[in-house]
């Protein structure tokens, strides 16, 4: 059980660490993100980080505790090293990928419908002729739908809109930051924060 328990504990701790990172005031100042207006649940997040480790210790799984202690340092580094810029880039890339995927799905829709038409057509023909009489040679070449339906065109257009939005989102933050960022003295270790 050491492996699954450790992974579960790391996921929970990772959520806590991610929350602490995203809401960290110094980090937000350094990247010119707006001050967090809602309440920061720091204690809850810290509990979420550490309680899984205590849980493993309570279960008596010493190996899992040691692995958790080691892995949490690497996980914490990984989470902290992802700057808001990286996160924005990842978001836009994933949106772009989602858009591409949607377009591919839309592109697949027509052949899928055609394939379904072949199957259903064959089935209805077979039923009308009687299943026992169907042989490969007798299956007729079905007429594929030559006119694309409205729903397919709508799906394709929607996918294109998603892709364009993703491209726009990718451009927008860089422009904004380049214009707005230089001013504030950043959170240097010595005097800020």
């Amino acid at each position, binding site marked *: 059980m050491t492996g699954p328990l450790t992974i579960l504990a790391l996921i929970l701790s990772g959520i806590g660490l991610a929350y602490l990172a995203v809401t960290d005031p110094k980090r937000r100042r350094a990247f010119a993100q707006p001050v967090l207006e809602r309440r920061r649940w720091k204690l809850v997040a810290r509990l979420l980080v550490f309680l899984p480790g205590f849980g493993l210790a309570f279960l008596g799984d010493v*190996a899992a505790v040691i692995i958790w202690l080691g892995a949490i340092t690497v996980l914490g580094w990984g989470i902290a090293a992802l700057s808001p810029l990286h996160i924005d880039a990842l978001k836009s890339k994933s949106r772009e990928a989602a858009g591409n995927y949607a377009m591919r799905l839309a592109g697949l829709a027509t052949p899928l419908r055609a394939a379904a038409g072949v199957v259903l057509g064959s089935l209805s023909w077979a039923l009308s002729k009687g299943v026992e009489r169907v042989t490969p040679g007798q299956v007729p070449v079905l007429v594929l739908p030559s006119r694309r339906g409205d729903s397919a065109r709508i799906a394709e257009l929607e996918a294109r809109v998603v892709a364009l939005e993703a491209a726009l989102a990718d451009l927008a933050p860089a422009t904004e930051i380049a214009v707005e960022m230089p001013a504030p003295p950043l959170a240097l270790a010595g005097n800020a924060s």
Partner: protein
Amino acid sequence: MIALDQARTKRLTAIHGWSGTILGVLLYVVVLTGAVAVFAEEIGVWSQGGTRSANGITELIDRPLRDIARETDPRALEEISISKRTDGAIRLSLHTHAENPATGESDEFGALYYLDPQTGEPLRQWEGFSSEMRRDDGGRIALERFLIDLHVQLYVPAPWGLILTGILGLAIMVASVSGLMMHRHLIRDAFLPARGNQRLVSARDRHVLASTWSLPFGFLLAFTGAFFSFAISLGLPIVAMVAFGGDQQEMVEQVIGIEAPADKTPAPLASLDYILAESTERVGTPPVSVAIAGYGTAGATVTLFHPPDNGALLGTTLMFSGADRSFLGEKPALCTVPSAGSAVVSLMGPLHFGNFAGLTSKIAWLALGAAMSYVVISGMHMWVRRREDQAVWRRFAWAITISAWGLPLAMLGSAAAFFLTLPAGDPTFWTPMGFLIAAIAAIFVGLGPQDPSDRFRVVFAVSCLALPLLRHLTGGTAWSDALAGGQVEVISIDLLLLALGAVLLWQPNPFGRREDGEHRRSDQRGDEIVLEPAE
């Protein structure tokens, strides 16, 4: 974190920076090879193939042992050790201790057998001194052996290699402590990533962030590593000299708690298979090795070493009487009675090797090693960035880039040489030579007017993609055979290399290249952060 005045901070910065810079490349070699060596056993299975059975000794070995013992010089029956090799064969060593005329040092002298795990028949056998037998036998395990040697003693002859790695362990500890004292806002900066890509302050951010998180386990791994290096190279010989008149064998036996059999009356060994079964039943897992002292005497003892059970950090060692197979009790790691010292020493191994919970702990330790490698390289990078207006430091920056990429490339080179020479050559010789040749090739790749990072990336990616193919073409275990034999390691390492190569080749920067003009700050501020006086 700790309030220091400016002068002390400057001194600490100098110690931290210069020690890291002077020893940095060696530190990087030790740390990265250590991260890879965590998977030495898996690399052994991947590289040499074979029919690996379940972990631990589960085979019937009583009859083969008796057959071999009957034909062996009785002096070699003083100590018998049985273990399992990564290729599934049973390793049976029967030996006494004698001075090796070639080295002038005490060495194991006797016979070594590799037995077929199914039939118990000898597959290979040697006679002579242990060090010579190891050299003859080294071919199939040359790759895993080389990686371990490189990590343990940087391929420098004993004891100097161990002393060197011990010093490197101390250097990491010094760097950890000085870094902790220099960086006053350790907790507050724990979530502050690098701001921008190219500026000095970004280099500082990257190094500080990685080292902040790596600090506790970095220190732990360095401490345990230095302990092993110094214990073997200096500690034990000094203790042997002071307390045992220079007899290291006697000292080892006393410290470990292996007592010579008191009753030397001839008596047959009880069924070893029965003892193995009972020990397995008591602990819950089969032993990974067995030691028999005083074979054929009434005072013979059988010691069985079991790996850690699920959820435990330490293994279990049980002792049985060899004459009447009665259970003598659990044996501590050191001496014959439990002690705090024994418990601490027992913890050193699992905490350094990360092998206490199978793949889960090994993956975690690999990640820790990779993080520490990053800390070393990013630290050196930051140091030279501050001095890049001087030609000598610009050349050193070049050397850092070549080392950073060259080491993993050279490790791939050693693996390639191993595969090419395993079927008919001498892998023991050619595996380190492959490393050397690839390292020289890496230097040539690094030469040129442009930043060599992109060239290295492509060469490294292609090497990663080519290695599984080379392994397959040179007669390595096929995926179908690996699946049939339950050798997940073969497929996993192949896939890992292919994935790494593909990612590096097609996705040079997963986050895209962004200019760092977003957050314009003075480069000099990066220096000031470290050198500021305490509040």
